[in-house]
């Protein structure tokens, strides 16, 4: 059952260097003509006079990875994609840092636009990840996705 289920989780923020390395790895795949990338960045939202300083992410990782695997397989069936990568942070990610990275590649641009939107929306809706917004005074509230 557990065929090739990748672990999407990384500890802490996703660095611009990691993103660059991921892009560079695709330069040997010369059938690719188009990449699309989505990055989720932690906002310093103001809530009742307090500012979000960081989000502490936790997850039910087994279910999360299984659901991402299913989202991935469905996207490969539906869209003409060469590659797809999904990463999400666990633990503390400060405001301004990247917590979510989705990367799709194809010969042409249409599949990357269509699949990127679909994959990001599905992950937000279906993957059991929980964000705890930490304010500067160390109080917190639980994040609610729009």
């Amino acid at each position, binding site marked *: 059952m557990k065929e090739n289920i990748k672990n999407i989780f990384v500890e802490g923020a996703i660095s611009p260097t990691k993103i660059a390395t991921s892009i560079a790895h695709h330069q040997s795949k010369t059938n690719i003509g188009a990449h699309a990338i989505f990055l989720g960045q932690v906002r310093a939202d103001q809530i009742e006079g307090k500012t979000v300083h960081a989000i502490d992410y936790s997850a039910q990782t087994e*279910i999360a990875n299984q659901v991402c695997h299913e989202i991935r397989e469905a996207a490969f069936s539906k869209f003409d994609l060469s590659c797809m990568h999904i990463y999400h942070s666990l633990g503390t990610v400060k405001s301004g840092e990247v917590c979510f990275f989705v990367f799709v590649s194809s010969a042409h641009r249409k599949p990357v636009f269509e699949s990127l939107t679909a994959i990001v929306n599905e992950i937000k809706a279906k993957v059991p990840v929980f964000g705890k917004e930490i304010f500067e005074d160390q109080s917190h509230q*639980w994040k609610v996705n729009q």
Partner: protein
Amino acid sequence: MGLRVRYFGQLQEITGKKEESLTGVFGTIGNLRAHLIRCYPGLEKIHFKIAQDNTIDIDSSEVNGTLIDLLPPFSGG
């Protein structure tokens, strides 16, 4: 046989626990949900999904696994 029940996200604050063991016969996931809300009345305010053995399940399913996870609303990304 016992059930291992884990609480995620804000449900850890509501129950005051990360996990616990439960014994008893609950029948369906829905009955288990009702039991847990009786134990922790704060759960009534939060919409939560229940997974058994790492798969999200519906309330009409039979409890036949050993691992139960309570999952509050997802807020990844």
